[in-house]
């Protein structure tokens, strides 16, 4: 686990990244053995992509958006609409999903990136709700409450070979490929000077402005990038679900991604959103098997996390690691202070 706040060597990866790739890469092979199903793996990967992009905004830049479901939804609709009205090509669809969400998100960011704290959060809610209502009422384009149905999983055409994605196994691997790509890009981004500026803005926006950084431009870029990633995730979700539905754009679903990101520890770790997404979906399936009102228990769990351990699962892990390191140091009697993590 690596903390957004800790010093990093710039690099392309880490042991945790290899572990995550090994876990999700082999997931389709064993997920059915542990009593779950392959589609769940697809869902987890898609939401991991969404949450990772969201955490660029929440965990790294410190900006809470409660309307991010809107950009996820826009990506899903863009995927379907290009397929129906433009050209039935997977890559064009995904590109359209990313671009549509980035353009809309970039436009919204123009209005809100000079805002701070609670004002920022309230404005993201307002914009998110606006897109939600537009999507639910603009029936001729979005299908309204019924959603955009029959979105096909087009084959992934790589020139000489083309993969059929209609099975959930193939879709798992495709979602995994997207997850790998997004992880590597975001990892590079967050460990670049750009990422450092974002973290500094999270700590003290005013100071960064006095230091001469164009804070508003950085916040704009962070918001737009996370919207683009949300759009990609939305496009993938439209493939997975064979449709695009307006529910994901609601305030509640926008909140769910915040919940996932936080519960896993997005505030202190790059991997927090991934952990949180897995926890959320596994909890949904396990608790959901016992009780209709699983969200009640999950909500209570979430409240306890915020009250007692807002750094989430990743924070607990870091505490344990720090304690272990301290004990080892005490045992070996080493005098030199521990260097970073």
């Amino acid at each position: 686990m690596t903390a957004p706040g800790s010093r990093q060597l710039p690099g392309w990866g880490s042991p945790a990244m290899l572990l995550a790739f090994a876990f999700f890469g082999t997931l389709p092979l064993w997920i059915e053995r542990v009593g779950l199903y392959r589609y769940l793996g697809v869902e987890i990967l898609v939401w991991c992509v969404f949450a990772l992009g969201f955490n660029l905004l929440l965990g790294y830049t410190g900006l809470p958006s409660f309307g991010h479901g809107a950009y996820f939804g826009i990506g899903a609709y863009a995927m379907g609409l290009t397929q129906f009205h433009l050209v039935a090509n997977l890559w064009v669809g995904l590109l359209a999903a990313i671009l549509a969400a980035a353009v809309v998100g970039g436009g919204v960011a123009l209005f809100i990136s000079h805002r701070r704290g609670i004002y920022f959060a309230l404005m993201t809610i307002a914009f998110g709700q606006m897109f939600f209502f537009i999507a639910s009422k603009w029936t001729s384009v979005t299908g309204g409450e019924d959603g955009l149905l029959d979105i096909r999983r087009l084959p992934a055409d790589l020139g000489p070979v083309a993969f059929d994605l209609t099975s959930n196994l193939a879709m798992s691997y495709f979602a995994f490929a997207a997850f790998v790509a997004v992880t590597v890009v975001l990892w590079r981004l967050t460990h670049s000077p750009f990422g450092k500026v974002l973290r500094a803005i999270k700590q003290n926006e005013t100071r960064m402005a006095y230091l001469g950084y164009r804070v508003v431009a950085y916040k704009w870029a962070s918001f737009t990038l996370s919207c683009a990633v949300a759009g990609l995730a939305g496009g993938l979700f439209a493939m997975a679900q064979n449709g695009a539905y307006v529910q994901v754009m609601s305030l509640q679903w926008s909140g769910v991604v915040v919940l996932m990101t936080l519960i896993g520890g997005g505030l202190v770790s790059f991997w927090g959103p991934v952990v949180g997404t897995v926890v959320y979906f596994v909890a949904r399936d396990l608790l959901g098997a016992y009780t209709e009102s699983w969200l009640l228990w999950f909500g209570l769990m979430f409240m306890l996390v915020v009250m007692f351990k807002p750094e989430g699962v990743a924070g607990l892990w870091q505490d344990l690691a720090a304690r272990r390191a301290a004990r080892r140091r005490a045992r070996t009697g080493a005098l030199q202070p521990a260097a970073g993590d």
Partner: protein
Amino acid sequence: MDLLVTLGPHLLNGLALGLLFALVALGFMLVIGVMEVINLAHGSLFALGAYVAVALVSAEGGLGVAVLGPYFELPIPARFVVALLLAPVVVAGVGMVLEVCLRRTYGRDPLYGLLLTFGAALVLEELIRLVWGPTERFLPVPASITGGITVGGLIYSVYRFFASAFAVGMILLLWLFLQRTRYGALIKAGAHDSEMVRALGVNLTRLRLLVFAFGTALAAVAGIVMAPIWGVRPHVGVDAVVPAFVVIVLGGVGSFWGAVIAGLLVGLVVGVTGAFATAWSLVSMYILLILVVTVRGRGLLGKKSVLER
């Protein structure tokens, strides 16, 4: 002129809606002011108020009737008044529990308060579903304030007159409370600089608890008055709390009359849009918000506040 006459009922609808939005927003704003917390559970407490009122007024639903048999022999108007008085107290109790949970987030990033109340909103909504079921419920209204009156060939709903008048009364009472009482002064001072209030020897912990309870009670009152207009669904809270956000940002955080004016503006815009394009009436308020905030960054009457950190 003809246009204005045909718009009449829609203007009334908008007025009632706007005043109730303002009422929700004011409760919400008290909490933001003193606690610097955006209470995302405000809408769920609004819904809870409506449900508790349904339980107190409607004889359907079993449990209440079995326990409080003789109570349900009271006429509906009496039960309606009891609900208006008692349901906010019950909801304020729930609000107090939430405030105690919130104490752990004071002095930390305001994000945590926001997230905690988001979790609370989930929990409350699921609890409502669990207790009252997912289907829509109805709040019986005394016959004296139902029905319609016909003016110039158009039907005006009597209940909406009642709702508007009630909301105006509540808003004025709240204003008098804030302007004329010692506690009102403390609340305003707490919103301005809570640490200084504590330094002057005021029990800030108790002040916060009471303000939170008071704010949630206002949400519950608005929920009850809104119930006959909107119906009572577990999800109704979101429909109320999001316009309240809009009203607050539009009016300017921390401005009492800003919230009232913004509430009226939002209500009227929603009402009038509803007359021409029903489907788009709920989008109109966001467009209004974006237009106003683009020109006036802090809303209509907003001043620079501590919340912009």
